[in-house]
């Protein structure tokens, strides 16, 4: 095979058995890799109900690379970690950049399928086509940075690691898996799944590299992407200021959330204080990159003064700055950098953690958490107020260790709201149990339908809407011109096409930020050049549809209904001020159009014919449609 190693490794942690599986080329062609191939492998293992819960030993955890990972095209670093989400109970997937994907392929495997649970903590060493489980008792209890340091001391600096911190060990429902230091597979709680298996870490190292089918075809593609990148405003801004370079300009569009999504505007100076340009002038020490990336969006920061020092290391990106900043009305970048460092070390998703704390601040304000006043989570629960960064940082610690109120908040906003009663549901800002990413569906109505119908919950990357609202078009697929941001007309089609493209990008291992400069036609050419599969635009478009239907279908098998495809009540309330004043997405219109485009009935179930046309007859059988 080209682009692929051609081998997967299945590990049963309960029996300590490992099994190599040859990757079927037809399966690879049809599902590509990443979360796409992982979803197909998950479906194959799902069996008849009752299905194992997310944290049951039988639930698989799948680490999957894509064919472009590790090759010399910009932004070919990604991989996916997938399973049943402890946050939603539905399909879960987390995407991560860095260097692990090429390292795993170098170690001899395209992906890992992990089932069972170890009797005692272990780590998995994958090296040059061999796999071994090793004792991790000494590592258990360590944060991810210390774990990475210990493992590279043991296996050499070339070793690439995935690890969980205390949050994953403590089964925090939004625990992340951290690659090396600061590359994070953050969303949907895959760190908790790993923790439930008592798998502390995975180490990959090796010297292999799958061949490319048509190397000469890659060079002009690479040059074309780099040329476009040099002229692309967004790429240049991200290069200079990281993704947080979008903070101020985003606020002008109403994209940035304030005060748990309840305010339309905030103090201009406070927003400027959070912008990537301010970071560059204050705490920035350098930038970092992933494999084969010329953008280098990663921030390196250090804070030596003030109450929250941060050691030189990975800094916050936009989502983190917004989640711990604007959402909680904190305008102190140094404190946000400290929150980022703590989340990275504990292994916590910064979006869900910051959003859950913002939810808790509002709950404190409304007197809904009075019973936890002496829970010992933080020194003074009444201090958990808007803008109080010290109390917020304390709460991060309490969540990771499940101390006092932290134990409830470790379950996530939706579970906490359910526990606190109907009054809390009003300001629980989640979709399918996943806290919203930091982009407003009031500003971009296409995001609203994108969030509501993303299989993993409120994901901003699932439909590429914010890229399209930022100027990216897909003329080959019918998205030829921009649409008004605060209008719901035509947004169902836009989101459906965006989902199809995003599914393929994710499956292939392309970084979303680099994909700004890669047209769909070039995406097809790149996949064909690397894999040797004679992909066409039509086939790639059909694969995108297949992957979305597959993940949606898995959700249905796991109990999802049309009621889960919705936006939380708070976002359907218009704001009184700011750039999105009065803007409310028309969910009824967009859902009606979207369901028609996807051939879903009113209950969200797909038509058999549609599934068969995209090669999902087996899913149709499982769904009994």
């Amino acid at each position, binding site marked *: 095979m080209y682009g692929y190693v051609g081998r997967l490794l299945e590990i049963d942690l309960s029996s300590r058995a490992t099994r190599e599986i040859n990757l079927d080329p037809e399966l690879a062609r049809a599902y590509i890799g990443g979360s796409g191939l992982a979803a197909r492998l998950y479906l194959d293992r799902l069996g008849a109900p009752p299905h194992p819960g997310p944290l049951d030993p039988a639930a698989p955890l799948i680490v999957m690379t894509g064919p472009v990972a590790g090759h010399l095209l910009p932004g070919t670093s990604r991989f996916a970690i997938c399973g049943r989400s402890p946050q939603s109970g539905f399909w879960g997937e987390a995407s991560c950049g860095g260097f692990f994907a090429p390292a795993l392929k170098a170690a001899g495997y395209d992906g890992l399928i992990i089932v069972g649970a170890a009797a005692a903590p272990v780590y998995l060493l994958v090296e040059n086509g061999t796999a071994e489980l090793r004792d991790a008792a000494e590592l258990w209890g360590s944060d991810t940075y210390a774990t990475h340091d210990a493992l590279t001391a043991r296996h050499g600096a070339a070793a690439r690691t995935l690890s969980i911190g205390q949050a994953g060990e403590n089964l925090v429902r939004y625990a992340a898996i951290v690659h090396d230091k600061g590359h994070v597979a953050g969303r949907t709680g895959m760190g908790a799944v790993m923790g439930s298996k008592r798998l502390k870490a995975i180490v990959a190292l090796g010297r292999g590299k799958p061949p490319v089918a048509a190397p000469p075809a890659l060079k002009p593609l690479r040059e074309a992407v780099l040329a476009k990148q040099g002229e*692309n*405003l*967004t790429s*240049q*801004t991200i*290069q*200079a*200021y990281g993704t947080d*370079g*979008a903070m*101020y*300009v985003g606020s*002008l*569009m109403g994209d940035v959330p304030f005060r748990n999504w309840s305010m339309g505007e905030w103090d*201009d100076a406070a*927003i*400027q204080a959070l*912008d990537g*340009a301010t970071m560059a002038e204050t705490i920035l020490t350098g930038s970092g990159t992933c494999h084969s990336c010329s953008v280098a969006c990663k921030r390196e920061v250090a804070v030596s003064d003030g109450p929250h020092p941060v050691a030189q290391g990975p800094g916050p990106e936009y989502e983190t700055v917004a989640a711990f900043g604007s959402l909680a009305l904190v305008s102190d970048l140094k404190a946000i950098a400290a929150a980022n460092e703590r989340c990275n070390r504990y292994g916590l998703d910064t979006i869900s953690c910051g959003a859950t704390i913002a939810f808790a601040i509002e709950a404190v304000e409304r007197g809904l958490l009075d019973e936890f006043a002496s829970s010992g989570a933080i020194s003074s629960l009444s201090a958990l107020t808007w803008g109080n960064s010290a109390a917020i940082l304390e709460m991060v610690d309490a969540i990771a260790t499940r101390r006092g109120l932290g134990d409830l908040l470790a379950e996530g906003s939706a579970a906490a709201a359910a526990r606190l009663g109907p009054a809390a549901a009003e300001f629980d800002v989640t979709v399918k149990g996943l806290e919203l990413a930091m982009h407003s569906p009031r500003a971009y109505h296409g995001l609203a339908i994108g969030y509501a119908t993303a299989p993993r919950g409120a994901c901003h990357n699932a439909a590429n809407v914010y890229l399209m*609202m*930022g*100027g*990216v*078009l897909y003329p080959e697929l019918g998205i030829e011109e*921009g649409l008004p*941001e605060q209008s719901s007309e035509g947004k169902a089609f836009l989101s459906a096409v965006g989902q199809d493209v995003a599914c393929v990008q994710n499956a292939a291992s392309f970084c979303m930020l680099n994909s700004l400069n890669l047209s769909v036609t070039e995406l097809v050419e790149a996949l064909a050049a690397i894999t040797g599969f004679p992909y066409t635009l039509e086939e790639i478009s059909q694969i995108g549809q297949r992957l979305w239907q597959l993940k949606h279908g898995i959700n249905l098998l796991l109990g999802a209904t049309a009621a889960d495809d919705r936006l939380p009540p708070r976002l359907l309330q218009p704001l009184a001020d700011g*750039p999105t004043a009065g803007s409310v997405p028309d969910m009824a219109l967009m859902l009606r159009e979207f369901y028609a485009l996807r051939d879903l009935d009113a209950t969200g179930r797909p038509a058999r014919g549609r599934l068969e046309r995209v090669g999902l007859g087996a899913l149709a059988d499982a769904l009994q449609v």
Partner: protein
Amino acid sequence: MPVFKDAEQLYDCIGGVLDYLRTDETVSVAFRKSGLVIRFKYSDPDSEITLDGSQDPITLTCGPCDRAPTVDMTMSADTAHQFWLGKVNLVAALTRGAMKAKGPIPAIMKLLPVITPAYKKYPDILREKGLDNLINV
């Protein structure tokens, strides 16, 4: 039909808001610090305005200017009008080419927070000139 009937009217309106920025204390300090020379090239009507932050005081030239620009911003006069009314998705406009920027983009983005207060001033400038009818076009 274009918003501005001729270059003179554009200089009066867009030049007016740029002149406000030139003389505003906060903006002028930040702009001087950037050292940028920005040339705005407009179409419909064809016209250009240069804001020179390399000099103290900052100079504004409506019409052709000898100073070599460090940044060229090219757009239609209608887009410029909508921008100062705060109605343009800046990132989309730049990405899709409705506004073209040539020069150090990060430096331009850094000036954004400094110039956006003029969104509120621009309608006042139009009103002062008796051009209220242009505010909602």
